């Protein structure tokens, strides 16, 4: 079986940044797997997701479903659903929850094409699936942190992507919201979706298929059993 996400000896740097953020990172994630990236802050975990999304120039090999990212950025992004890091909407954000979810479909239409009613229904179904149906018309900035993360997950799902990139999905959530979101992520994996997530918490660590420790822009794949996190950090050198 071919990997759906693949990095091989990837080097990448942010414009204006000091030095490379990735220094020969490598990973392979296969269909239906849950992969996790752990490591200290600034190690390059988010950068790995951004390379897959085509947000950053890179050297080396970065492929999504066999497509080289920098050669096919549009096709690659259509295959990926993305939940960005620490994105919390302030209360005055002029966007309703349903509109945020529908945004995931905008790229499938030309500017002159009207979005059909089916897109609204599809977005609403995604919210129903994540238990947010009654919040569909709420301003997204008035949802709780956990609900906002779920709305972003719904947005990633309506793209119809089979691969999800989740950047710190549990950040700033209370234990109840974390457990709720962890269930949702595991449910998606059970449905056959491939998930690559950056985490700092234990929530889904033991359920992962693959875990990479990221440090100084390099990746090291860990062997089972995964966790607990403090032990991994001690072993890999904090």
């Amino acid at each position, binding site marked *: 079986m071919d990997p759906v996400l693949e990095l091989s000896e990837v080097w990448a740097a942010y414009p*204006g940044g000091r030095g490379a953020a990735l220094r020969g990172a490598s990973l392979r994630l296969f269909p239906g797997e849950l992969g996790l990236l752990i490591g200290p802050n600034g190690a390059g975990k988010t950068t790995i997701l951004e390379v897959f999304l085509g*947000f950053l120039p890179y050297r080396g090999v970065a492929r999504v479903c066999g497509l080289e990212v920098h050669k096919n950025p549009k096709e690659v*992004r259509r295959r990926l659903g993305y939940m960005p890091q620490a994105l919390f909407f302030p209360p005055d954000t002029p*966007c309703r929850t349903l509109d945020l979810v529908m945004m995931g479909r905008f*790229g499938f239409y030309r500017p002159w094409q009207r*979005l059909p009613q089916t897109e609204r229904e599809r977005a609403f179904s995604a919210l129903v699936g994540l238990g947010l149906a009654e919040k569909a018309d709420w301003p997204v900035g008035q949802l709780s942190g956990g609900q906002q993360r779920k709305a972003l997950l719904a947005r990633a799902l309506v793209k119809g992507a089979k691969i999800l990139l989740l950047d710190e999905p549990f950040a700033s959530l209370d234990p109840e919201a974390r457990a709720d979101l962890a269930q949702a992520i595991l449910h998606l994996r059970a449905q056959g979706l491939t998930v690559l997530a950056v985490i700092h918490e234990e929530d889904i660590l033991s359920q992962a298929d693959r875990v990479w420790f990221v440090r100084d822009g390099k990746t090291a794949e860990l062997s089972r059993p995964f966790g607990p996190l403090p032990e991994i950090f001690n072993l890999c050198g904090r």
Partner: protein
Amino acid sequence: MWSLILPSLVAGCLAGFSGGLLGVAALRLRLSALGYAMAHAAFAGAALGLWLGLPPLLTAFILALAVAALLGPISEKTGLPVDSILAILFPLTMALGFLFIALTPGLPLTSPALTLFWGSLLGVGWTDVFVLSGLALVTAGFVAFFRREVWASLVERRLAEEAGIPARWILWTLLFLLGASVAGSMRLVGGLLVYIMLFLPASSAAQLVWDLNRQFLLAPVFGVIATAGGVGLSFWADLPVGTAIALTSCGLFLLCWAISPRRRIPSLQTKGEDRGRG
């Protein structure tokens, strides 16, 4: 009387329309420094024109547009936020303006470059109306045609890009149009007050409607009302036109603030109003 006031009135309405429309984007992008930087770039351009013996309005346009066009790419390349770059460009263009004025021998205080600083009711001609008509048409056409793309780029740029929207180009184009709008409005309002036309109509609209699409509809209307009112007030009360437009814009904002039902944030009780987009 009408032959005197009509070009200013029409130019003011067109500038108010474009300014209101683009102000919604400027407000959302929190580019409050943009108005200042553009105004001073245009001032430096006009001074350069006088020094080189070129038409000052043309050089004002070129420099303001150059600053607007370069903002996005410079920010992208250097990794600096647009606001920081504006903070650098602001004193630089101001200094250049004064330098060019100092280099121009025998420049009188009533020169076109200096009226660009505080505006002129009588300095506006049909050429300005023609330029502002084109700008209003392009701006309205762009925002209407790319309404989904503009909306998404203004709500969250990264999410828009991930959804397949060329958010970078959308935002750069908006910045460019903002620069053009500032340069085009300078002759009427003056560089010192031109940012009012960008921010006050949009801020007024945001007091009454929360939805970004509705702000795009209401802000240009407020822009036209405030500017036309300002031109009228200037003529009637013999006030400097920039000052009069500033007064009517502030008055309109205070009125909207006073009657704002939700102080910008919709209450949960009214969440059913204005159901999304399509």
